C-alpha cells in the first residue's frame, strides 16, 4: 500500500529582509496567562526578530490572539487576567511595575480583526493618535496624514475626500485606514490580529502586499487562520495548540519540515 501523500504547501519566495533586520526585539520568557483559574497560555518562550514578519498560527482557541494581546498589554482591559513570566521589548520588561502602558501602546501599534475606524473623517482617523500626543500644527498633521495614507497604500484612493466619513470606505479600504492610523504614530512594532479575515480576496492581497512593504520599517506580528497567507507573508512562524507553543522557526521550515507531528498535521490541513 502506498502511503497517502499529503499535499505540501509551497512556500513562496519571501521578500528579502531589510538591512540590519533580524536581531531579536521581543523576548517572551516563560509566559503564562490565566483567566481566573483557567490557564490560557502555558509557559511560552519565544523570540521575535526585528523587522521580520512573524506569523502566529493554530486552531481557534489555541491562545495565539491572547499572546498577541500580551505584547501591547491589551489583556489588561479584561477583568481577572493574571500573567506570569516576562515579555521584554528591547531591554525593558513591559510587565514591570514602572512601565507606562500608554507609552508602550504608542510603540506597539495594533490592527484588529474587524476593521474599526472611528466614526470620524478619514483625516481625523489618521490624525487621532498624533493629536493625542499633542501635535497641533496643521502642516505637521497634514504631512503625517499623507505619509501614513501613502504608507498604507490608500492615499491615491482617498486624497480627494479626506474630510468625508471613514465609514463610507469599503471593508478593505477601512482596514488599510486602520493600518494607516496605526503607523501614523510611528510605532516600532505592529500587531495584526487576523487583519484580512473579513476581506475579499482582492482586498486581502492588497493588505498582504502592504504587510510585505511595511516590514522594511516595522516589526510585524500577525495572527492568521490562513495557512497560505502565513506562507506568503511571514518569515517566521510559531504554531500554537491548546495554549502551548508547539514549534517555531523559519516559515519555510515549519511548512516543509516541521519537527513535531502536530505541526505537520495542522499545516497540511489534517486538523484545525
Amino acid at each position, binding site marked *: 500500500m502506498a502511503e497517502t501523500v499529503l499535499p505540501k504547501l509551497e512556500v513562496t519566495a519571501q521578500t528579502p529582509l531589510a538591512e540590519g533586520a533580524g536581531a531579536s526585539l521581543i523576548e517572551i520568557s516563560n509566559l503564562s496567562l490565566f483567566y481566573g483559574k483557567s490557564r490560557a497560555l502555558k509557559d511560552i518562550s519565544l523570540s521575535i526578530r526585528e523587522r521580520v514578519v512573524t506569523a502566529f498560527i493554530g486552531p481557534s482557541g489555541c491562545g495565539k490572539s491572547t499572546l498577541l494581546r500580551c505584547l501591547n498589554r491589551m489583556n489588561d482591559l479584561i477583568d481577572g487576567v493574571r500573567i506570569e513570566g516576562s515579555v521584554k521589548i528591547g531591554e525593558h520588561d513591559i510587565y514591570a511595575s514602572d512601565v507606562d502602558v500608554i507609552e508602550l501602546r504608542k510603540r506597539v501599534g495594533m490592527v484588529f480583526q474587524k476593521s474599526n475606524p*472611528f466614526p*470620524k473623517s478619514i483625516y481625523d482617523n489618521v490624525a487621532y493618535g498624533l493629536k493625542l500626543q499633542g501635535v497641533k500644527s496643521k502642516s505637521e498633521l497634514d504631512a503625517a496624514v499623507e505619509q501614513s495614507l501613502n504608507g498604507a497604500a490608500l492615499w491615491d484612493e482617498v486624497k480627494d475626500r479626506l474630510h468625508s466619513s471613514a465609514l463610507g470606505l469599503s471593508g478593505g479600504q477601512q482596514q488599510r485606514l486602520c493600518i494607516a492610523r496605526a503607523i501614523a504614530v510611528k510605532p516600532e512594532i505592529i500587531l495584526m490580529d487576523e487583519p484580512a479575515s473579513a476581506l475579499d480576496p482582492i482586498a486581502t492581497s492588497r493588505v498582504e502586499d502592504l504587510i510585505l512593504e511595511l516590514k522594511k520599517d516595522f516589526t510585524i506580528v500577525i495572527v492568521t487562520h490562513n495557512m497560505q497567507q502565513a506562507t506568503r507573508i511571514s518569515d517566521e512562524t510559531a504554531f500554537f495548540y491548546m495554549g502551548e507553543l508547539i514549534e517555531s522557526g523559519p516559515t519555510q521550515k515549519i511548512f516543509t519540515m516541521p519537527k513535531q507531528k502536530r505541526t505537520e498535521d495542522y499545516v497540511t490541513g489534517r486538523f484545525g
Partner: protein
Amino acid sequence: MEAQSLKSKAQSHHFRTRQFDFGSFFFSGLTGLATLLILAILAVILGNIIVNGWPNLTWHFVSTIPKKDFFDPATTGVLPMIIGTTIRVFVMTIFVLPIGVITAVYLTEYAPTHSPVTRIIRAAVNNLAGVPSIVFGLFGLGFFINFIGRNMDQLLHNPGPVWGQPAVLWASLTLAVMTMPVVIVATEESLKAIPMGLREASLALGATKLETIIRIVLPQALPGIMTGGILAVSRAAGEVAPILFTGVAYYMASLPGKLSDQFMDLGYHVFVLSTQSPDIEKTRPILYATVLVLLILTFALNFVAVLIRARVRKKLRALG
C-alpha cells in the same frame, strides 16, 4: 410519465383545510381593543382641554402678570407661571445632565462589573425611580432647604433666611434628584451600545481611558444622552409634588430674578385654580386655558430638545 406521477403525488397529498382559529382571533381582537381604549382616553382628555381651553387662550392671558386676585377671567394671566415652569425645567436640566451622565460613565466604564458595590449602586438608582414624588418634595425641604440652605445662610452671615427657604434653585435640584435615574439609565444604554472595538482602537493608539471616553465614547453616546434629557424634561415639567415645599409660591407680584427667589408654576396654579377659587364656575374657563398652556409648554420644551437631538444625530451621521 414523470410529470404525471408528480401531478398525482401532489393531488394525493392533502393538507388539512384551515379551520377557524378562535384563540388567535380573540387575542388579536383584544390587543386591538386595548390600543383603541388608550387612544380614546387620550382623545377625550386632549379634546376636552382643547375645546374648552382654546377660546380662552388669548394673548392677554399668556402675557399678563396677574394681580393678587387671579380668579377673575377678565384680568388674570399666566406669564409668571410660564416663566417659572420654564426656568425650573432649565435649571434642573443643567444639574441633572452632567451628574447623571458622569454617574452612568462611572457605572459602565469604570465600576467593576460584578462587584457588590456596583450592584448596590444600580439597585439604588432603580429604587430612586420608584420613590413617590411627594417624598422627593419632603427630601428637598429637609436636605436642600433646612440643611444646605440654612448652613449657607450661616456661613454667609445672612441676617435673615436667603437660601434657607423655598427657592427656584432648591425646587430645580429636587426635580434633578427625581429625574436622575431616567438620565442614568438612558446614558448607560447608549454607552453599552458603542462597540468595544472602538474603545480598543483608541486605547491601542496610546489614548488613556479618559481620552477614549471624551473623544470617542461620549460623542457617539450624545443622542442617547439627549433622549434621557428629553424624558427627564417631560417628567419634570408637569410635576407639582416635588416643588410644593421647595420653591413654588401661591402668588408673587413680580417675576423671579434670582435663584433664591420663589416662583409661580403652571402645574401648581392648576391646583390652586381648581381648589381655592371662590366661584368655581366663573374660574373654569381660565382653568382650562391654564391646563392647555401647560400642555403646550411641555410639548414645546420637548420639541426643542428633540430638534437639538436631531441636529446632533445629523452631524454625527455626516461624520460617521
